[in-house]
């Protein structure tokens, strides 16, 4: 009896000691300039296989039409003058130092920026990286006909680039631009290996970039895989350690997990299974890591009338034009159940666009889950309950009597969490007498252009649901989304103010945020905008995705960053 008890205790202590926590980072964050590794490089060698759920259409980040582009491009073509580390700080990469007021890199009037490249830098094809490449990058990204859709913020403010010598470039701005470092954190373009700015969409470079990154594309089998081998000219001594990276394109979530299970892959982007299930299934082989993400899920309302051939804000939406209806919708959603039960804690709460980063605004919802309030608001707004459980207008602000409270909810297809969210919201809204009809479209339609008659661009929608995010320099995205000058119309086809929201206070705050170099001033301005979103409800924020990655336990040296993609820092990876 005593021996049995003793052995049980031994077993128990063994089990308890085996339990441990997992962290989001493996090995300390590497400061690019200071890691010392043997000059032989490739210590450990080997190939890491990464799983992508879709195929990137290009490896040119500036032409990225989807987030997937960055996942692969960051290993090869996105090494620029600076990068953003996992703390959200800028660190110099190709540049010797970051230009600041202190070191004179940024002039006192904020209008002149001096960048100095490190010595001896080479592109992956052996050609030297010079200040002329900085000049070329500015030429391309400031050219409105280049076809660039990402990373162009503030380039139109650069009036001149002077190449003092091969390593030094002096940029002159027409007005102070706080994002002057962020502009160069997404890669440099080599003049000798690309082409004319207007032809950027047709460059061969887009498929096989000559870059300063740790890996170089050696083979791209369309629909199957992208293989990248070690860049011998990579500027950090001894890195990358791996011999090659293979990005496999595997759309089915179950097949992806099976690859991780079989050891056919070591890095899994956005696993479909929740962490508890994933870790159990892949115990000993791989672990799922969750880190704060930037993808913020919200419902966008169309404040103007849809399907009237008029994309402007002129006519209010018959149902959503009344703020009480929007408030009722916001009050009908059970946010906590959505985050905890439906999405099993893989998301965190988010109430406004600024839910992360240095500009994070912790603002409480004005209209939280309150079914009684929702019903009360709808009654006040002139919507009476109909026989089929759906309300009908009777004395409503804009809708003629007899109109059913029926709205279309558009989202994109083939994304499970989004579909679950939609179905949950439909039930929530049904409970207060609102009929929400889900109508999902392919990614290319939802995120299409004005010329394609994409619903959100031309204003032919009631409610849109999708996730959006921006990185450490928020001005470009937020100006495009919230400025009253950015409503998409025929004259302004690339505008981002889908909700057709006109708010002069927001316009003023955007002005302040875009011209000040004082981070606190900017943050206060952004929080003012966040509060306006909460008050005026052009959108209802639901939750913030945590970025999830499945990583094989045999891999080390990686750092998962909110601000980077899956292949950020791939130069530091190696096998144990």
């Amino acid at each position, binding site marked *: 009896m005593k021996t049995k008890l003793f052995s049980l205790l031994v077993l128990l202590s063994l089990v308890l000691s085996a339990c441990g926590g997992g962290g989001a980072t493996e090995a300390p964050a590497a400061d690019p300039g200071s890691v010392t590794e043997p000059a032989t490089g490739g210590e450990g060698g080997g190939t890491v296989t990464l799983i992508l759920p879709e195929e990137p259409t290009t490896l040119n980040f500036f032409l990225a039409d989807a987030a997937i582009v960055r996942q692969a491009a960051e290993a090869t073509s996105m090494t620029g003058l600076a990068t953003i580390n996992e703390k959200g700080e800028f660190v110099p990469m190709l540049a010797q130092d970051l230009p600041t007021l202190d070191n004179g890199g940024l002039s006192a009037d904020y209008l002149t920026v001096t960048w100095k490249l490190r010595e001896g830098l080479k592109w992956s094809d052996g050609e030297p990286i010079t200040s002329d490449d900085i000049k070329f990058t500015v030429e391309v990204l400031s050219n409105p006909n280049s076809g660039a859709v990402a990373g162009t913020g503030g380039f139109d403010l650069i009036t001149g680039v002077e190449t003092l010598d091969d390593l030094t470039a002096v940029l002159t701005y027409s007005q102070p631009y706080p994002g002057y470092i962020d502009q160069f954190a997404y890669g440099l373009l080599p003049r000798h290996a690309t082409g004319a700015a207007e032809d950027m969409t047709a460059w061969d470079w887009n498929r096989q970039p000559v870059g300063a990154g740790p890996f170089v594309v050696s083979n791209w089998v369309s629909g199957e895989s992208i293989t990248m081998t070690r860049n011998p000219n990579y500027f950090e001594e001894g890195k990358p350690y791996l011999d090659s990276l293979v990005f496999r394109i595997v759309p089915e979530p179950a097949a992806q997990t099976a690859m991780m299970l079989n050891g056919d892959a070591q890095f899994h982007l956005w696993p479909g299974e929740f962490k508890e299930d994933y870790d159990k299934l892949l115990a000993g082989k791989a672990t799922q890591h969750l880190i704060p993400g930037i993808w913020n899920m919200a419902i966008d309302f169309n404040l103007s009338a849809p399907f009237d051939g008029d994309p402007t804000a002129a006519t209010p939406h018959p149902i959503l034009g009344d703020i009480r209806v929007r408030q009722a919708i916001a009050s009908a959603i059970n946010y906590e159940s959505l985050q905890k039960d*439906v999405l099993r804690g893989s998301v965190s709460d988010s109430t406004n666009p600024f839910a992360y980063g240095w500009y994070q605004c912790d603002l409480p919802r004005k209209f939280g889950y309150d079914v009684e309030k929702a019903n009360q608001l709808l009654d006040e707004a002139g919507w009476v309950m109909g026989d089929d459980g759906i309300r009908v207008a009777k004395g409503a602000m804009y809708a003629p009597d007899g109109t059913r409270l029926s709205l279309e909810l558009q989202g994109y297809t083939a994304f499970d969490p989004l579909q679950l969210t939609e179905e949950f919201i439909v039930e929530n809204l049904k409970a207060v007498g609102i009929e929400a009809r889900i109508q999902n479209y392919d990614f290319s339609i939802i995120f299409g252009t004005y010329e394609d008659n994409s619903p959100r661009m031309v204003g032919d929608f009631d409610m849109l649901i999708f996730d959006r995010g921006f990185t450490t320099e928020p001005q470009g995205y937020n100006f495009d989304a919230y400025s009253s000058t950015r409503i998409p119309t025929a004259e302004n086809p690339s505008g981002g103010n889908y909700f057709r929201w006109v708010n002069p206070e927001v316009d003023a705050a955007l002005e302040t945020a875009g011209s000040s170099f004082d981070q606190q001033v900017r943050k206060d301005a952004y929080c003012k905008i966040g509060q306006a979103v909460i008050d005026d409800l052009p959108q209802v924020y639901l939750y913030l995705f945590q970025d999830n990655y499945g990583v094989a336990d045999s891999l080390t040296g990686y750092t998962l960053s909110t601000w980077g993609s899956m292949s950020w820092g791939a130069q530091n990876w190696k096998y144990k």
Partner: protein
Amino acid sequence: MNELSLGNRQSESVAALIVRRFFKHRLAGIAIAVLAVLVIESTFAFLSRYDPTTQNPTNSFQTSNAEHWFGTDELGRDIFTRILYGGRVSLTVGLLSTFLSIALGVVVGALSGYYGGLIDSALMRITDAFLTFPTIFVLILLGAFLREQQAAWLKNSVFVVIIIIAALSWMWPARLVRSLFLVLREREFITATRALGGSDTRIILRHILPNCIGPILVSGTLQMASAIITESGLSYLGFGVQPPTPTWGSILATAQNQVFRAPWIAFYPGLMIFITVMAINYIGDGLRDAFDPYVIHTEK
């Protein structure tokens, strides 16, 4: 006592003969019963104590138990109820899209096969064109076109799916009917009818077409099976019936993410599709045996 006991066979009508020969094929008989059960249970789905869309997120991923015979899904909805309602869409889409497809195919094939010449060439080239379209692109184009329309009835998802599947499958019945007509129009009884002054329409509708019913029906059953499977694939592209309306195919598609954690969510709709397709195929076998005058049954 009859001297010449010719038995019952000679006084049977053609219809009765066909029915009897059908049920000689035992599996076909069972298959009809199974299909009837599926149709009945789908029609009476509203008798289930749960709604197909009522959620209970805290009660998700239950395995089969007394409360939920097939367990619950990721939002805590009763899977058994969703399977019942899902049958409505899947079986309706299967039936209606096949009818439409056959109707189109028969018209094209009959005209083509009977008149020949320029009409035949023109219609067959159109058929060939449809056959060469890559399915995915046709789906995307059709989806975009229909989406632009404002008419409310066009926005109804089930209707759209039926049209899309019919538009992509009418070519096979068309070819089949054309080949049948090419053969049958040369028969003596047709020449006789023409000599007696029968109009083209009369010949097509009253003389040739009735003789094609057998092969058309068989082809139809095969197509219905294929239609149900296509509907399953369409919803994954966002063309099918929109959530939260359940169809066997859409339940299967969303079950993919949970296949390691809750495999039963994929098992049940997969089972239903399997049973339905097998039943339809056996019915097709039975029909083929029943209609074909040249098949010799071996006695069991």
